[in-house]
């Protein structure tokens, strides 16, 4: 035991000092103040953790410093907002996506057929590119022809700000104008299906030499592809036919349920975006570390511009779901039970004669989701086969590959998981922080600091670092309001707002200088 103590002496001393500081900070406040501040810190920490954990798993497994992570967090928030406030747009977008994907899934079918082609070498090399160009052209034309109900960031009456207000008043259903349906839209869907088919065909042509599957496996893959394609196309057409009914149904739902749908949609969208990013853009760059940083930075740039183009430059709010929005009679609730019966936005906690007002969404729901994700990802890492591969890959990915595990596929999965977590964080942050085009960059900086403090590739480190960043920020903000009584100053010292980011950065620099691998990081 003493050797373990001696080995981790610096870590233990730092942790003790931090605990002492926290204790002193709590002592300087009244009970209600520190409880509220602590809950807020947990809430900020939970959202930071959702971004930081994905970032750290990606960094640990594939050494990719994904600077686009903050932007993906932001995209998650905006996608979630759209699915939440404009369900009609979501429903409109599903059929074209489903049909494009249905065509694309047909990939395995072609290989057998392509084998029998006896074309000259030049033609064999050129046609896939021609096919790709054809697919892009088809996509461009068909996607433009398919009508989708959407907002207009440039016009105030139709802007996201006004839609969010309408949503809060329950006016969305009245202000909808259904997008025109009929022959042209159906034709556009067929065009999208053809674009997917053309893309899968040309990709199969490009990849032809990669290696052949044996007969039975190939036959099974073909069967699966056909079934998947038929299912997706059928689903897309069904949604297309019952478009209006589905929209009405979604709008009739309780907003809490709608919010759950938004969370699922945004997480799935983030995960697929991550998988797409890894498999097309990042995969060629595993050999060149600095270039990945720059690529992901460029992607962050493009993502931010995309968000500005679609949702506008002005920030807007995301209304809270009904379970956390009530202000009528019985509110603020005095107990958890009261909250559930009256659906209050705040709860009152009493300490002696003091009462603290706690917002149910920000300070309870976000923390609970953060804890659930913390435990779920920990279970995934510790108890499943995938988690075992990930942990082994963080240690030595070459060795894992040598043991016959398809690390490529695990890379894609982990990237999807990490980005999905960030997107989930984005939707959760929407109602509490609001949406703006700077939210990604701010949160990425916070997550980076949290990771540097906790240890860049350590999962408990990500949690501890996020918590520390949240605590430091929130306590300094609170002390900025009430002031600290320092012994040698007459007036209480009030930290000014710029000190909030500066303090976390300083904490990071100090901890890194004492322990370069972070609090819980592995020693090199």
């Amino acid at each position, binding site marked *: 035991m003493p050797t373990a103590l001696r080995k981790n002496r610096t870590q233990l001393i730092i942790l003790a000092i931090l605990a002492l500081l926290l204790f002193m900070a709590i002592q300087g406040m009244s009970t209600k103040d520190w409880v509220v501040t602590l809950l807020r810190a947990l809430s900020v920490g939970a959202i930071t953790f959702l971004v930081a954990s994905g970032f750290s798993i990606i960094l640990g497994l594939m050494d990719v*410093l994904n600077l686009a992570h903050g932007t993906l967090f932001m995209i998650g928030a905006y996608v979630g907002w759209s699915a939440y406030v404009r369900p009609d747009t979501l429903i409109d977008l599903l059929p074209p996506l489903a049909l494009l994907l249905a065509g694309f899934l047909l990939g395995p079918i072609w290989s057998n057929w392509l084998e029998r082609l006896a074309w000259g070498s030049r033609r064999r090399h050129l046609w896939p590119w021609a096919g790709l160009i054809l697919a892009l052209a088809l996509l461009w034309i068909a996607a433009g022809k398919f009508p989708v109900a959407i907002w207009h960031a440039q016009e105030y009456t139709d802007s996201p700000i006004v839609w969010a207000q309408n949503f809060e008043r329950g006016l969305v259903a009245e202000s909808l104008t259904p997008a025109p349906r009929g022959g042209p839209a159906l034709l556009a869907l067929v065009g999208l299906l053809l674009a997917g088919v053309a893309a899968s065909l040309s990709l199969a042509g490009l990849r032809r030499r990669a290696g052949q599957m044996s007969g039975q496996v190939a036959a099974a893959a073909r069967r699966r592809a056909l079934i998947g394609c038929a299912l997706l196309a059928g689903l897309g057409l069904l949604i297309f036919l019952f478009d209006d009914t589905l929209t009405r149904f979604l709008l009739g739902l309780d907003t809490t349920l709608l919010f759950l749908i938004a969370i699922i949609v945004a997480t799935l969208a983030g995960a697929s975006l991550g998988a797409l990013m890894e498999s097309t*853009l990042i995969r060629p760059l595993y050999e060149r570390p600095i270039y990945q940083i720059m690529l992901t930075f460029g992607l962050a740039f*493009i993502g931010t511009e995309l968000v500005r183009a679609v949702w506008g430059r002005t920030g807007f709010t995301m209304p809270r779901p009904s379970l956390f929005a009530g202000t009528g009679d019985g509110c603020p609730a005095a107990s958890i039970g009261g909250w559930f019966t009256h659906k209050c936005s705040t709860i009152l906690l009493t300490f002696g004669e003091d009462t603290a007002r706690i917002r149910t969404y920000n300070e309870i729901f976000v923390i609970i989701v953060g804890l659930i994700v913390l435990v779920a990802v920990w279970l995934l890492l510790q108890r499943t086969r995938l988690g075992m591969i990930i942990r082994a890959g963080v240690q030595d990915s070459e060795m894992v590959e040598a043991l016959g595990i398809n690390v490529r596929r695990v890379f894609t999965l982990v990237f999807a998981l990490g980005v999905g977590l960030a997107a989930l964080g984005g939707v959760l942050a929407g109602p509490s922080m609001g949406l703006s085009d700077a939210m990604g960059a701010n949160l990425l900086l916070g997550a980076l600091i949290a990771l540097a403090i906790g240890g860049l590739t350590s999962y408990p480190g990500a949690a501890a670092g996020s918590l520390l960043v949240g605590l430091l920020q929130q306590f300094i903000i609170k002390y900025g309001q009430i002031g600290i009584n320092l012994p040698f100053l007459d007036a209480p010292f009030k930290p000014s707002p710029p000190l909030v980011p500066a303090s976390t950065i300083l904490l990071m620099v100090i901890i890194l*200088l004492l322990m370069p691998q972070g609090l819980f990081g592995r020693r090199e």
Partner: protein
Amino acid sequence: MPTSSSPRTWLRSQLGLILIVLALAALPFVIGLLNGQSISDVLANAKGNAKFIQGLMIEVFILAIFAISYDLILGITGLLSFGHAMFFAVGSYLTGVALKSFGWSLGQTILAVLAAGVIQALLFGIVLPRVKGITFALVTLGLASVFDILIKTRELGEYTGSDVGLQGIPRPPILDPTDQRLRFYFVALAFTLLVFLLYKRFVDSPTGRVCIAIRENENRARMLGYNTFYFKLAALTLSSLTAAMAGLLNALYKPIVSPEIAGLGFTVDGLLMLLIGGMGTLSGAMVGAGIFRLLDFYFDRWFGEASSFLIGGLYVLLVLFVPYGFVGAWRARALDFRRGRARLLHLFGGRGGD
């Protein structure tokens, strides 16, 4: 290295550089003549396109010095620093504050900026032996962010102008960017050339060779008996001094010293310049700075709002398809070009193919 000291071989080996310098020196006059101004007009700093192009080129020179100083620590020595904007911003802000609030002369200011450059390098030097790789990047980013936050605080607003930027710096009359723009242009050009030659000499010197060895494999360099810390510190000091001097020129030239130059965005701009030109090539940094500034300017003029989107897309394409930058790609291909030209001459019956 060619050992022959005959002036003719020297001239031939440096032909490209000499031609470029001559072209840049003639540029204001050529632009002036093309726009119907006489040479005396250009010499008298008359308003017009020539003066405007001079201004744009001065900005390119300043960025080129910044980029080459970043190249020395990132591309040559291989230190992943994300705090390089601080080196530049300290030079700029110190110049502004010294001239405006303290009323120092230009000479005193230059001395102060040089001293600040050394101090900054030493500050990074404290961090240097403790952290490596991504952690070093994060710590430098952190230090630079603290400086960024400091100059934006309201408490120091009297000196730094907080969010708005530092305005109304009194210009020394001998180097006034509006009245003496042509002189400023030549001073900036000369300084850029000086920095370039100095850096080339540094990289070719034994010290510079060790720096390259550190980039390739630090442990092996240490095994050979070099104390790598001193070499890294030397590279950092030189880089910090140059960047601070570029900052001084920036403060003298720009009407407002904007706080943007202290942020992470400016470091990334520098990274982008290196990426365009080619990392670790020195001349690539200069080419990259030129392309970056001109592209930024003309994209903004042609495409307006969509320009940043296009630049982002261009950036991704560059990383994927021209990973070693234009100068790097040129150097890799130069041999092929030479061989191809020789074969062409041979085909036409010349005696070139040897």
